């Protein structure tokens, strides 16, 4: 299996541990990642809020690149996923809109044809690699680790561009179960992390994150698992911001799902990866760190 790898903006700039782990784990599961070298920003929430046409055209340009590669797109970020999947779905189903966007793209020699699909890392692991292969790849499962998941909004919403309501929740829960960890349900699981309001209204963004953290703490989890770089930033770095502004400490380590899978597959985290987490990972990574 081969995918056009769309790494996005935030991950290669700030969350290298996510990128490195994906580049290591997926090939070990039989997935070949082909970099989308000239891809631009997905055009997330901020750009969609500014101008509809710019969003459509830029997202479509990325989709054209994947089409030229003859591959489906693999994204690691819920924001990239929403933008690309939404535009792909809209353009595939609306000829007038497609023509309009293609008119803009014609100047740069591109044409959207609608030949590729857009997939999130979780889709690829759950649907394409499959639970059987993943279960077979687990060599050092976690025992007695209770986590809360943050599936994030756009892994499953809006439902019209997904096949099944909250399917991503179930996929993530099953994937986590395969690593030996236990997913603990909590009240605010479906709630947004607050990420889109960072840099727009920091105070509100913090308050949304705090609601989630309170709910997670009440569920007595030992850590949080995310599948989106914004959720990760919001819940990891965000905990320090909540501490500063509300004088409250939650001390809930946050892991990218792929890191959890990586460790369960017997691969160690490197020292710099462990240190890249603002909330110390503590016992979760005991015996799972590469010795220098």
């Amino acid at each position, binding site marked *: 299996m081969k995918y056009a790898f769309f790494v996005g903006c*935030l991950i290669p700039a700030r969350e290298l541990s996510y990128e490195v782990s994906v*580049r290591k784990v997926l090939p070990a599961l039989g997935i070949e990642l082909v970099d989308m070298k000239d*891809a631009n920003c997905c055009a997330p929430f901020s750009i*969609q809020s500014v101008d*509809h046409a710019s969003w459509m055209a830029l997202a479509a340009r990325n989709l054209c690149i994947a089409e030229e590669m003859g591959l489906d797109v693999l994204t690691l970020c819920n924001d990239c996923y929403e933008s690309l999947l939404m535009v792909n779905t809209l353009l595939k189903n609306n000829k007038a809109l497609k023509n309009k966007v293609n008119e803009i793209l014609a100047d740069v020699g591109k044409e959207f044809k609608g030949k590729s699909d857009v997939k999130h890392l979780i889709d690829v692991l759950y649907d394409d690699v499959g639970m059987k292969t993943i279960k077979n790849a687990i060599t050092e499962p976690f025992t007695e680790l209770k986590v809360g998941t943050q599936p994030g909004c756009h892994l499953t919403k809006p439902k019209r561009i997904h096949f099944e309501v909250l399917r991503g929740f179930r996929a993530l829960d099953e994937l986590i179960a395969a690593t030996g960890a236990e997913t603990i349900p909590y009240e605010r699981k479906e709630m947004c992390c607050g990420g889109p*309001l960072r*840099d727009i209204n920091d105070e509100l963004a913090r308050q*949304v994150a705090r609601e989630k953290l309170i709910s997670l703490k009440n569920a007595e989890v030992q850590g949080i698992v995310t599948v989106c770089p914004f959720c990760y930033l919001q819940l990891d770095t965000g905990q320090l911001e909540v501490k500063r502004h509300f004088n409250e400490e939650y001390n809930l380590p946050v892991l990218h799902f792929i890191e959890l899978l990586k460790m369960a597959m017997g691969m160690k985290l490197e020292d710099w990866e462990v240190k890249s987490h603002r909330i110390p990972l503590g016992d979760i990574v005991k015996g799972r760190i590469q010795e220098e």
Partner: protein
Amino acid sequence: MKLSELDLGLMSEVANTPRGKGILLCIQCGRCTSSCPVARITKEHNPRRLMEMIILGFRSEVIPHQLPWYCLSCFTCLDRCPQGGDVGEVMFAIRNLAVKEGNVPAGVLAQAKSLMETGRVINPIRSALDKRESLGLGEIALGGLDEVQSILKKTKLDKVISPKETVKRK
């Protein structure tokens, strides 16, 4: 506010934008507000009320206001609207109109400018680039920047984010 200050064309203006059609379906039931994570935190934000103000033509209370920027676009309201009224989508339509009148938060403006200059909304700092190199990760230089800039020239993004006439933000 006087009756003469209402903009009775506001609802159609919103409905005629690509993501704004849902406003026509709003029955003011309030399920959007009861689903909204931001409304849970602050009474200031109330998506139902925002829809109502658009329907009634309270332009000066919506377009220059910071309220459309309180939305997280989590799409919970969009999935729960019994009318298929797409509240979360209408929010994008409102923000697009707001930006054209100069109502754009500094953080969003900075991302739009970064997009025009670099093709990305977020760019790595020096230390991240060094780390990438030491890890043997590929370059993330954007080869297609000229294409991106040419697209954004055609969509006139520079003019969208710096309109000639702007309203005072509330």
